[in-house]
């Protein structure tokens, strides 16, 4: 019991740092770039608009990583979902609702196959999902090498439906511009909320932590380790499908090169959010801030205007190092007791 408590305090500590880091960064941005619109509420909502897909996908990765696994196929799944949705709507004339079903179908299929391979055949999750990565990108090219623009009316109506918020800002010309979000943001936040609740309050959520923390003792506690892992991968697949569709609503097109490297963004968001690659530790709540920090860095650098956008990667790598070192220090402390 005492051991358990310490682990949670470690998680809490990492989480605290992430939240503080985000707050400090954003506040600094607001102070320095106030005249460049950084202080506007819309700038904050843009973080969610742009990263809605990533947010959902990172939730999936957080769960898989807590269970002790990894999934590097999510970027390819996103590309495949976008392409399949675009192709079905534009070239096969299916409805936008059908495209949602296709997206979820792809996600479930991915989760199921990868989950079975990882959980029941004991294959390294990295290798399994690497295969998934290649397969997804390849299938995307097989469906179409050309870019497909989505013109489906229902779909575009979803994508372009602005939800105006009661706050806003005045433009330089004195016109009041209300802040807005898109339905993607609402969906993403709802999904995040559900995942937080599932991970915290359900038997499944607690099993994932137990399996990731120590599979042996979880088994001795009478948990079905394999089943839990499989479930984690299926949930991850579904979230990748959902996230991919949200991504598609943002880009309105299917294209082979889409979302390349998205899996790395998702993994780094989870790590910055306090999830340990070794499993057992992490929270979906922290991952939200991981995603927001990534978004804030790229906003800051674009707003600055003269720095090369490759600096986003450099700053991210520095942050990753910082968090990994911190995790390792905490881990060592725990061992020493």
């Amino acid at each position, binding site marked *: 019991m005492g051991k358990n408590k310490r682990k949670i305090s470690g998680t809490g500590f990492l989480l605290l*740092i992430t939240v*503080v*880091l985000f707050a*400090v*960064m954003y506040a*600094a*941005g607001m*102070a*320095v*770039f106030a*005249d*460049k*619109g*950084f202080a*506007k509420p*819309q*700038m904050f909502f*843009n973080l969610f*608009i*742009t990263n809605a897909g990533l947010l959902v996908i990172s939730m999936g990765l957080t769960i898989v990583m807590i269970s002790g696994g990894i999934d590097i196929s999510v970027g390819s799944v996103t590309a495949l979902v976008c392409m399949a949705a675009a192709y079905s709507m534009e070239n096969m004339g299916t409805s936008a609702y059908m495209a949602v079903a296709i997206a979820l179908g792809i996600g479930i299929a991915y989760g199921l196959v990868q989950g079975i391979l990882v959980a029941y055949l004991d294959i390294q999750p990295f290798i399994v999902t690497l295969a998934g990565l290649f397969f997804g990108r390849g299938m995307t090219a097989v469906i179409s090498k050309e*870019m*497909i*623009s*989505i*013109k489906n009316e229902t779909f*575009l109506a979803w*994508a*372009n439906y602005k939800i105006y918020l009661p706050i806003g800002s005045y*433009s*330089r010309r004195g016109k009041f*511009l209300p802040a807005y979000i*898109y339905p993607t943001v609402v969906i993403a936040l709802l999904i995040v909320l559900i995942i937080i609740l599932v991970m915290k309050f359900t038997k499944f959520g607690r099993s994932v932590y137990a399996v990731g923390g120590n599979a042996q003792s979880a088994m001795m506690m009478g948990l079905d380790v394999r089943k839990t892992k499989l479930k984690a991968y299926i949930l991850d697949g579904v979230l990748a499908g959902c996230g991919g569709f949200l991504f598609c609503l*943002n*880009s*309105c*097109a299917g*294209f082979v*090169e*889409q*979302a390349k490297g998205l899996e790395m963004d998702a993994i780094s968001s989870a790590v910055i959010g306090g999830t340990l690659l070794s499993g057992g530790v992490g929270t979906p709540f922290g991952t939200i801030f991981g995603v927001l920090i990534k978004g804030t860095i*790229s*906003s*800051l*650098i*674009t*707003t*600055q*205007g*003269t*720095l*090369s*956008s*490759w600096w986003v990667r450099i*700053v991210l790598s*520095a942050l990753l190092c*910082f968090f990994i070192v*911190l995790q390792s*220090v905490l881990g060592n*402390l725990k061992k020493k*007791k």
Partner: protein
Amino acid sequence: MKRKLIAALMVTAMAASMAVGCGGGGASSDGGSSEGGSEGGSEGGSDVITVGFAQVGAESDWRTANSESMKETFSEANGYELIFDDAQQKQENQITAIRNFIQQEVDYIVLAPVTETGWDTVLQEAKDADIPVITVDRMVDVSDDSLFVSYVGGNFQLEGAKACEWLKAYADAKGIKELNIAHIQGTIGASAQIGRTEGLENAAKEYGWNIVAQQTGEFTQAKGQEVMESMLKQHDNINVVYCENDNEAFGAIDAIKAAGKTVGPDGDILVLSFDTVKAGIEATMKGEIICNTECNPLHGPRVAELIQKLEAGEEIDKIAYVDEGIFAYGSDVAKVTVDGTDYEVTEVTQEVIDGRAY
């Protein structure tokens, strides 16, 4: 003991995170404060025009020259402030950058789109914020044409027509009676392919040229070489090759040499090409490419011209082409005429190559 250690660690970590946070802000605070200064200036009556430019990336010499042209044109000295974003070939990065430009309330957004599609949502946001969008290099495919004010880029059909007029004049000057042309097309459907192919087909019809073979080389050297090899096997009377970009021309030249034939003014086959990248103009100086029609990456001045017109409240054209030259080996043809307009032909010398920006 342990609690102390954790507390100490916590403090260090906090300090570190603050430092990182401030470092992120601090690194850019120079830009921020200088911007503050120019901002103050603009409120004081002078009008600095802020332009946000979302560039594709830095994948080729052509692209780099394109970026440099924008940076030179929209300099502080010229009364502009340029916010430059390199999207690293990712459309999602460009969408993010445009959203950022909107919040910064730039006066104009210039977009060199990575992809032709998927711009409806974000361009609508720009329109709602009353920020005009000018696309360069590639068109965007949007359902509502009012989402962008103008397109700046090359006139590919004119490029094709110019090359063909040059060929006609050159053939007349050299007394070449019969032209048997091998046509290596670009990637089918690309705007450059459509325009340049149209130019050749029109000219062939008008002047009675014989296009003996026509196939796509997909704008690559490897494919250009492969296509040329098979064309040479099927037809032994080819004396002109019309390639739709420099890379295809390099491949074709290799294939011709491998087949034991010669290229150039005194050789068996004349090679015509487009784009005029650095390696292309060097090949033109040697005569391997006899005539190279430029695809000009220097879009900056043309975009600035449009912006000045918009500032003055004038109407602008939906499509604005950039000026493009013709580079040739030798001085047999001094100028060509297309639709009543004269275009000068530049003889390639070392000075010409050194004088080019890319």
